[in-house]
């Protein structure tokens, strides 16, 4: 297959089209604009529709309508825009509609900044909007993995009738790497959606809805959703271990930070430190047991959670570690991408603090 050098944001677009996505509802925000721009160029060529909505709020509700009509559909944004989409995501999760949402995270809170960050971990993995629900969240660490997970995301969205979020960051969206994109799925071969609202011809009318006014009915609906999330936790755990088999100090990081930590592990091992890396790829469901097992298995004596945020991922890491070994946070919020050398010197006890860039 052809190997192409592509920007992360553009590669998402091509991977989505290959996965059978023909509808994209966008709204501009840095650092993800290359994706809607790519879709605006490419979708008309494959008989699809790109539409720029009047707001992120509208865009996610257009996704709701299109997903309810049975289409493979996508939207993308970055942190402040994702906050605006949370209302729609709650409705989409409640109405059990499949769709894929890309979040190229930037620093916050508020308008924050435009540089890469991971400070949307909470709003991605913990529901984000109102009500008891979860998105299935996948965090790629390379452009090729981004492409592979976008393809998978559409299948998982259909499998669970649940929104799937690709959680990236400014680095992943802006960087170029060689990728191969798998052959397009024939749109005709996509799973049938007999529940979709396509016109009630020769069948009873279909309804896409998240309203259950009777508390007993709503609690039954909640139970159904919970069972779905439990199934995800059984079937969709994704993670990677790097140099972990004899690690004494285990780094835990996802996305681009995990890439950086991989270099830290290499540098540390050259310097005689037994470093290892655990990288969650599915952030919801979070691989609690595989992380706990690893720690028990190999005699890790310290866990370091490295994230480009002020302590979000570390909460799940601590839930997995359950106090068995000390777990510390190296947090780099604000759009500061930690460099391998600065993480390593902090491991060596040469300084560095959460939220403070050594420069």
């Amino acid at each position, binding site marked *: 297959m052809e190997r192409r050098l592509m920007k992360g944001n553009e590669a998402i677009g091509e991977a989505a089209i290959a996965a059978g996505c023909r509808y994209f509802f966008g709204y501009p925000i840095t650092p993800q604009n290359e994706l809607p721009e790519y879709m605006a160029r490419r979708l008309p060529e494959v008989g699809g529709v790109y539409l720029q909505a009047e707001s992120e709020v509208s865009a996610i509700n257009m996704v709701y309508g299109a997903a309810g009509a049975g289409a493979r559909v996508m939207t993308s944004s970055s942190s402040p825009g994702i906050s605006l989409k949370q209302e729609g995501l709650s409705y989409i999760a409640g109405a059990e509609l499949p769709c894929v949402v890309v979040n190229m995270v930037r620093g916050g809170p508020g308008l924050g900044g*435009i540089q890469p960050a991971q400070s949307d971990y909470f709003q991605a993995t913990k529901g984000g909007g109102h009500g008891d629900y979860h998105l299935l969240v996948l965090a790629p660490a390379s452009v090729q993995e981004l492409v592979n997970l976008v393809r998978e995301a559409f299948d998982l969205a259909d499998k669970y009738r649940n929104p799937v979020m690709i959680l990236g960051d400014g680095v992943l969206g802006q960087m*170029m790497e060689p990728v191969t994109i798998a052959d397009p799925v024939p749109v005709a071969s996509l799973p049938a959606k007999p529940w979709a609202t396509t016109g009630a011809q020769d069948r009873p009318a279909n309804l896409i809805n998240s309203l259950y006014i009777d508390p007993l009915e709503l609690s039954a609906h909640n139970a159904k959703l919970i069972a779905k999330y439990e199934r995800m936790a059984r079937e969709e755990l994704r993670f990677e271990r790097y140099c972990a088999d004899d690690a004494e100090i285990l780094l835990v990081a996802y996305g681009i930070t995990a890439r950086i930590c991989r270099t830290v592990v290499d540098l540390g091992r050259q310097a005689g430190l037994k470093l290892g890396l655990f990288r969650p790829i599915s952030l919801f469901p979070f691989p609690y047991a595989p992380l706990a097992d690893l720690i028990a298995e190999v005699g890790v004596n310290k866990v370091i959670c490295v994230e480009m945020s002020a302590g979000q991922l570390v909460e799940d890491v601590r839930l997995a570690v359950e106090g068995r070994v000390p777990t510390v946070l190296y947090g780099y919020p604000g759009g500061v991408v930690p460099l*391998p050398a600065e993480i390593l010197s902090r491991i060596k006890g040469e300084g560095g603090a959460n939220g403070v860039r050594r420069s």
Partner: protein
Amino acid sequence: MLHEIISAGFGGQGVLLVGQTLAYAGMLEGKEVSWYPSYGPEMRGGTANCTTVISTGPIGSPVVSNPTALVAMNQPSLEKFLPTVKPGGVVVYDQSLVSSNPALLRSDVKMIGVEAQQIAARLGNSKVANIILLGALVKAAEPVSLTAVQEALKMVLPVRRHNLLPLNYAALARGAEIVA
């Protein structure tokens, strides 16, 4: 083999193109590559930079603390990144745009000053100063072959600009000659 190259200068000088060309060339040689640009308001008239990593093995961090090579097209870029270059690394800079302050220079890296603006002007187009520096870098640091760079330029330049390929090849060769 691991090359970590930072290319930096003012927006509009073509520093991102230098990095992209290196990345394409690496990919054409079957290597692992990554290219990461600075982005945001600094792009518009301010300073721009990008990091290109070329490796025979999987690439860890696409952002680097200590590059093996630096292409600097202005004074602030040289001041910012020169201290970070690994000892034994290669630094190519545009001498026409950088004041030769001896305090700036390092003796533990290979410093290559190139009168890129003047050479580009003599070639008839000041816009190829970046390609001259690229030629010098490729010759001095050998992250990829000059042939691969020539092929890569065909991919980086849009087809409607392919009439400029001979000029770019000439600029590449002139840059390489300076190092030879």
